[in-house]
């Protein structure tokens, strides 16, 4: 191809730089791995929820500094994938952003003759975000359903009874997530149940962080994301389940006493009563040190700090 001779030289330079950096990162990686390997006696396999995958990875990384006898292998794939692997007995711990279904529990018990044990390892609270200049502080689930739902009746800020000076078009810009993320699923179910859908035409962004980033730049926008992602440019709304009900702010206390309506527990499941290294790992996750990481990654730890 004729472009190749043109772009070729630059490309080669880049490739060389890339290869070098890969080689270097590769070296340091193997160093660490071999160092860990010397004392390793057990590998803990951990798989499941994509919502939890960063959290699980952070735990696994920190744990290499805590225990010299265990190495944790983390992979994502979704809650369903994790439970399926648990049923097949190929993982030690399954991560799940929903509770295990009765049918799954039965299958796992049947196949492995061990009953899966449930551990709540943290909470994921979805906050409803608006731009910091939006003159609104509270919202109800009913209103949110009318904003996001397929046949929703609220499309303007004035429909919510506020006059939004920084949003001349008055249109509510709905920020959402790509339609198969766990966050999307959970938010849709919390608002509409299982029988109806979100309306089209929302901006479906690709990450929890992007949602908050875009809302921070868009006075007309409303959106949802994990409560740990808040920035100074956005505001979290207090949420009530229905008009007339009390409003609750998304904070640690309200999530822990289960008054904040859009929060869900994050689960880990082990096959049978955990033993040995697996037990040590789960105990560490539930300890103050492990829970600190939960908070650091934007989730809600089990006990308020």
């Amino acid at each position: 191809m004729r472009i190749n001779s043109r772009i070729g030289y630059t490309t080669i330079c880049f490739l060389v730089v890339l290869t070098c950096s890969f080689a270097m990162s590769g070296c340091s990686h193997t160093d660490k791995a071999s160092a860990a390997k010397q004392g390793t006696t057990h590998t803990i396999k951990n798989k499941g929820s994509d919502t939890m995958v960063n959290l699980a990875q952070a735990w696994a990384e920190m744990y290499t500094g805590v225990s010299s006898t265990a190495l944790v292998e983390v992979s994502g794939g979704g809650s369903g994938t994790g439970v399926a692997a648990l049923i097949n007995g190929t993982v030690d711990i399954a991560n799940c952003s929903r509770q295990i279904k009765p049918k799954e529990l039965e299958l796992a018990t049947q196949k492995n003759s061990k009953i899966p044990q449930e551990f709540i390892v943290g909470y994921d609270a979805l906050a409803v975000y608006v731009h910091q200049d939006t003159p609104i502080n509270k919202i109800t689930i009913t209103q949110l359903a009318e904003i996001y739902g397929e046949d929703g009746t609220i499309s303007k800020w004035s429909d919510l009874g506020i006059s939004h000076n920084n949003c001349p078009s008055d249109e509510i810009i709905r920020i959402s997530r790509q339609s198969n993320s766990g966050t999307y699923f959970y938010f849709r179910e919390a608002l509409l149940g299982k029988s109806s859908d979100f309306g089209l035409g929302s901006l479906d962004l690709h990450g929890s962080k992007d949602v908050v980033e875009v809302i921070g730049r868009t006075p007309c926008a409303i959106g949802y994301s994990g409560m740990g992602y808040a920035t100074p440019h956005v505001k979290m709304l207090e949420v009530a389940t229905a008009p007339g009900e009390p409003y609750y702010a998304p904070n640690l206390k309200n999530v822990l006493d289960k008054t904040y309506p859009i929060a869900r527990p994050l689960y880990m499941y082990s096959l049978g009563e955990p033993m040995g290294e697996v037990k040590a790992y789960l105990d560490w996750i539930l300890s103050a040190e492990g829970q600190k990481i939960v908070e650091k990654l934007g989730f809600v730890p089990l006990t308020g700090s």
Partner: protein
Amino acid sequence: MNILRKRRAANLPFSETVIELFIRLCGISCIIFVFGIFFFVFREGAGFLFNGLDLGQFLTSPEWYPTSLSNKRYGTFALILGTFSVTTLAMCIAVPFGLGAAIFVSEFCGPKLRETFKIIIELLAAIPSVVWGFIGLTLMNQLIIAVFNVPIGLTMLNGSIMLALMSVPIIVSIAEDALKAVPDSYREAAEALGATRWQVVYRVLLPAAKNGLLAAVLLGAARSIGETMAVLMATGHSVNIPSGPLSWIRTLTATIAAELGEVARGDEHYQVLFIIGILLFTITFVVNLIADLVIKGIRQE
């Protein structure tokens, strides 16, 4: 003829035969890969394509509800329109700039400036698309809000500008080569007849380099249609029938990129995403076919 070739082959040193074989293998592998990819994409999507998918709804309905719990709908009309509109707008921006730059680099600027230009254009080609997407998400977003006074700048225009910036280097490189390939005798003859520099370009060079320039534009367009990350981040990724350059849209490629990571393998939704892949294949094939026919037509003239 055949005997002659055989004799020549017999006289060649062994290494030449090996090299020839190797090069032939490279050529054939290219074809094998294309067919292999097509086969894989088709196999993953075929089950649902022939059994269960309403093709009419797939192509004409704007309702894209792949993860609905009560009523799954797979309509890609809005996505197809998104892909076409963003590509068309990108080409409207990129073609004048790209061809203009190619003409300038090849005909009007001095050798020193030319080298600088080439390096800068190569640099532009080396920027990864996710970086363009990030620029679209942050910088261009703010700029479009400020200039057009719209609530949000993640629009078709934003994506088009990013795509244009990505395809301009390709267009410039190929178009410049095409212009350079026009023999100098053409230029000399035109100048001898008293043509000005612009007349030389407009009346002699452009018609003479037509094929190469068309190839440049089409390769640029192909780059735009296939681009994923930048449009995913810059266009708003919203299922919408576009109503103008400032509406939010979603493209076919971005849909695959955003959703394939989190579907279960073999699921209906998974298969539909591969059917979108087949659709993209078909679109690219048709574009290339048209290009071929057009170029052939020009040749016959």
